[in-house]
Structure formats: structure tokens, C-alpha cells
């Protein structure tokens, strides 16, 4: 536990000051390797169509799925393409899933003038009992029915179904399987307790400043300016801070100034300017003391499509002077002290939440790991860069820590795989709403929340 890291000779705050103030050096950074090269886009061209990314996804995941299918249903099952199906023959087909949803927001419906329809308001979930599942491979598509949970699955998943084609042309599914956990990475974790702080959703620039006190408390704890020597020696074991997205609040995204008259908006500046200045000051305090990795999120000033590129260092002039600040992509992958971290700022999980019946963020996180893909809904309902050569969101190696930011609550789970994989799944809560951050212990892959609350007028 984090609080057990206190040095045994630490004195409390009420002790008289000692002649020589004790110092607690922060544990040194022993191994850091940034592995997010697949998510860094150099020169971007949007001339390619999205058919390429789906084709590459299917071609890339097909061998792994065929192996899984053989392991599960026997080595002698027939693997067929949709064009080779014969009615009544039990076989296995690998393909991409498409869920036809009636409520799915469609730009064509919105601009269809003859219907005079008001655009559909954003709903929390777009699922309906009448949704249908369709399996597509390179050439054909077929409707699926049977032992497959239509509500739970989302478009873009690659899976293998086992069953037979019926006379009416539909495929009756008896069983289905996903790509399962990717192969494990060797474990080179640290021998002593080292902690990484995961926080997301700082939400700077919001109208209410309630979370600012908690943010300042967080910074003070990490930099060792809070508490007595006991807490300071604990904080010295934090080797890194990862801020997983949504550093700015959603309020900074308001574009009312576009609709107003020019003379009214002459002197106003975007709310994000002030918020980024605040972010710079907070990061400056953190960077002087601990390495910080900053991932962009949904409301941050970077591109909208996944993978989001790092924030530009010109926005953070004070903090970029320090080498401890690393501006990284979303999704982010890195080796910290031999432990492989992989995580996103939560857009992939919340998008699956909207189009699936799964309600628990941790359950969705686990499901994406078992499906072998970080964000299967990517070009369909979540903006994605049109890759043509390879799909970087396919999971090829199993990370040791897999996190997603901006979840409604903190949850964590240690997942054990059949081939010896050990993954710590962490849903990092939204700091502006819950004032909770997470501390991950790299030594034994445990995680605990740390909550900062100030006593306000309305607290009990």
C-alpha cells in the first residue's frame, strides 16, 4: 500500500524541527522507452478511403483468429470464406462484424431535406432490440442469428463464428470467439515498490473552480510539499505521472462566439487560452519534480481523429523548458521500468459504451483486450485517421497495465491469461468530477485510488 512506504524514522508535523532537514530523493528513472511510434503520424494525407483500414484489420487479425478457432473447435473444422459456404454445412467463418442500428446517427438522414427531420439529439445509448448483426469478409456479407449477443457487440470487431448457413440465407451461429489475449511480454518489473500516478480529466477552464483545490493538493502530494516526513517519503516513490486526457474542460469547447455578431466578440478570446495557461502552470510545478507524460483527450487542443497527436510544446512554454515533460499521443504505449503500459484517454471505451449494452467501463476495457483491438468502432462511429498500410490499434503484445481515462468511477482488476499474461486493467476516473487519481504499484501490479477532497460549505 502506498501509505506503508513511509520511512520508519519519519517524524510527524508536531515534532520540533530537527537541526538537519531530512531529504527524500525521488527514486530514479531506471528504464523508460516510448513505444508509441505506430500512433505518431508524420505527414498526414486524408486521400485514402476507410475501406483500406478495414481490409488491413481483417487481413492482420485473420491468422490469429484462425488459430483461436482451431484451438477452440478442433483442428479439423472447416474454415470457409462466405463465398464458399454451402447450406447446412458446419463451418467456421472469420470476418468483420457490422451492427445495423436504427438509431445510429447518420449524416445522410440529417441532411435529407425531403423528410424535414430535426437532427436526432445525442442519446446516451443507441442500442435497440431491433438491431441486427451482419458478418462481412472480403467479398460478401451475411446476416447472423443464433447464439450471439447482438446488443453486446459493436461494429468493427473481427471475430470467428461457428455454425451453418440456413436455407433462407442467414448464418445460424452456434458459437463465436474473439482473438483472445495477445501473446505475453516478458516481465522485467522493478524489485522494489515503485508507483506511477494516473490521473485524467483535470478539466481546467471549467466555470466552477471546485476541482482546482483538489488539483493543487494532487500536485503538492506528488512534489512532496504536503504532509509530514512520512507522506514525503511515500511521495518519493512515485516515479512518473501520466495525465490521461481531458486536461481542459468541456466548457472550453463552446463555440457561441461563432454565432454572435462580430462587434460583441471582438475582445473575447477562446476559453481554452486561459485554461492552457493554467495547465502550463500546473505542469511546471509537476515537471520540476517528477517526469510527466501528457496525453491529449477529447476536449484538448489537438486533432479530433484517433490517434490524437501530442499537444504542441509552444502551448506550454514554461513547462516545456523541462526535459521531464513528455507530450505523448493518445493512445499511449511505453515501457516504464520494464512494465509495459498501454492506455487511451477513454474515447474508445465511451464510444463502445454508446453502441453496446455493456455498462461497466471495466467490462468494456476487458472486452477490448479480449477482442484484440483497442477501438473496433474506430472509423465507423469514432473518428480515425485513414490508415492504409496497417492498423495500429490491433493488439499484438499483451501490455502489463492497460488503462483508459475519463471513466465515471475508479475500477481495477488483475486479469490472468492462459499463456501466463498478467494484465492490470485500470479505469482512471474523471478528476474534475471525482477528485480521485490512481496509484499503480509497478512491483506487484496493484492499484489503489487516492482521493483529494477539500471541505466545502456543502460537505457533511
Amino acid at each position, binding site marked *: 500500500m502506498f501509505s506503508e512506504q513511509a520511512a520508519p524514522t519519519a517524524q510527524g508535523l508536531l515534532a520540533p524541527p530537527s537541526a538537519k532537514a531530512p531529504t527524500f530523493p525521488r527514486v530514479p528513472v531506471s528504464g523508460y522507452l516510448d513505444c508509441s511510434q505506430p500512433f505518431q503520424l508524420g*505527414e498526414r494525407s486524408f*486521400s*485514402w*478511403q476507410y*475501406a*483500406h483500414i478495414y*481490409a488491413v484489420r481483417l487481413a492482420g487479425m485473420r491468422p490469429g483468429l484462425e488459430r483461436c478457432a482451431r484451438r477452440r473447435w478442433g483442428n479439423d473444422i472447416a474454415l470457409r470464406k462466405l463465398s464458399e459456404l454451402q447450406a447446412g454445412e458446419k463451418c467456421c467463418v472469420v470476418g468483420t462484424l457490422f451492427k445495423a442500428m436504427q438509431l445510429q446517427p447518420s449524416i445522410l438522414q440529417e441532411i435529407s431535406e425531403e423528410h424535414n427531420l430535426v437532427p436526432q439529439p445525442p442519446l446516451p445509448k443507441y442500442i435497440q432490440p431491433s438491431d441486427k448483426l451482419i458478418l462481412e469478409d*472480403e467479398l460478401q456479407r451475411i446476416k447472423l442469428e443464433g447464439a450471439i449477443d447482438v446488443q453486446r457487440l459493436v461494429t468493427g470487431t473481427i471475430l470467428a463464428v461457428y455454425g451453418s448457413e440456413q436455407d433462407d440465407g442467414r448464418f445460424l451461429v452456434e458459437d463465436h470467439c474473439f482473438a483472445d489475449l495477445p501473446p505475453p511480454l516478458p516481465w522485467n518489473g522493478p524489485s522494489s515498490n515503485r508507483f506511477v500516478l494516473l490521473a485524467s480529466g483535470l478539466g481546467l477552464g471549467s466555470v466552477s473552480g471546485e476541482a482546482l483545490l483538489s488539483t493543487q493538493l494532487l500536485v503538492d502530494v506528488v512534489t512532496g510539499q504536503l504532509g509530514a516526513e512520512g507522506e514525503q517519503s511515500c511521495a518519493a516513490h512515485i516515479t512518473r505521472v501520466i495525465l490521461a486526457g481531458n486536461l481542459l474542460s468541456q466548457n472550453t469547447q463552446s463555440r457561441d462566439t461563432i454565432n454572435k455578431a462580430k462587434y460583441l466578440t471582438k475582445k473575447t478570446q477562446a476559453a481554452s487560452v486561459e485554461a492552457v495557461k493554467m495547465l502550463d502552470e500546473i505542469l511546471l510545478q509537476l515537471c520540476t519534480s517528477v517526469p510527466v507524460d501528457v496525453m491529449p483527450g477529447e476536449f484538448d487542443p489537438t486533432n479530433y481523429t484517433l490517434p490524437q497527436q501530442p499537444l504542441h510544446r509552444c502551448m506550454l512554454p514554461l513547462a516545456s523548458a523541462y526535459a521531464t515533460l513528455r507530450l505523448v499521443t493518445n493512445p499511449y504505449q511505453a515501457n516504464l521500468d520494464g512494465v509495459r503500459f498501454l492506455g487511451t484517454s477513454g474515447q474508445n471505451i465511451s464510444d463502445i459504451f454508446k453502441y453496446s449494452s455493456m455498462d461497466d467501463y471495466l467490462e468494456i476495457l476487458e472486452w477490448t483486450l479480449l477482442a484484440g483491438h483497442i477501438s473496433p468502432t474506430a472509423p465507423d462511429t469514432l473518428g480515425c485517421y485513414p490508415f*492504409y498500410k*496497417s492498423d495500429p490499434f490491433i493488439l499484438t503484445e499483451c501490455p502489463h497495465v492497460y488503462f483508459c481515462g475519463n471513466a465515471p468511477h475508479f475500477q481495477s482488476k488483475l486479469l490472468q491469461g492462459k499463456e501466463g499474461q498478467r494484465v492490470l486493467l485500470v479505469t482512471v476516473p474523471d478528476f474534475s468530477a471525482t477528485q480521485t487519481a490512481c496509484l499503480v504499484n509497478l512491483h506487484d501490479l496493484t492499484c489503489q485510488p487516492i482521493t483529494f477532497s477539500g471541505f466545502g460549505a456543502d460537505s457533511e
Partner: protein
Amino acid sequence: MSQPRRITDSFPRRLRRRGPGRPPGRLKDKKDKDKVQVKVQDSSCSPSQPAPDPALLEMLRRFDLSWEYGPCTGITRLQRWERAQELGLSPPSSIRDALLEHRDNPDVTYRWVWDGMV
């Protein structure tokens, strides 16, 4: 003054020569103009590079339309060949040799189009 002096008289406009590896997106807009330009260059250096024969173009067209290697629109044939190679689909290497041999000819490097539209 016979005609008004223009700034381009003192700074003559020089059209930049297009290299062989330009991204296909830009080329799509100015494809016809570029084709005309490159064809002019081709005829000037035609003795060194023989024009591709129709059998070669037919083989490349069949490579484009074979579904195993994924969609063919918007990328050069060489990019598609290399992508298929990396995915382990083992495309025939004779196609690659042909593409590299005629890499200056846009009829060979890009997908066969009809009426200039992709």
C-alpha cells in the same frame, strides 16, 4: 509602355518538377496535366525506357482487381504490393519487378483508370 509590367516579369514563375514519389491525393487533382507533362518527358527519353507492352498492363490490371490484396483505390500499385507482402499474402514478385522497371510511367504505377477518374 507596350503592356503593364507584372511582378512575374522580374520573378519568372517556375513550375516545380514533380518527383516520382508524390502522394496520390495531390496527384488526383492534377492528374491529366501531369500525365501530359510526363508523357512529353517520356517521348524525349523513350529510347532509354521502352514503353510497357499491353500484356504487362493487363497483368497489372489483374493484380489490381484481385480481391486478396485488399482495395486498390487511392494507393499506388507498389504501395499495394508492399502492403500485401507485409501482411503475408505473398503477391507475385514479377509484379514488383515490373513496377520498379517502369516506375516513371504513371500508367504503370497507378491503378488503371478509365476516363481519368479513380
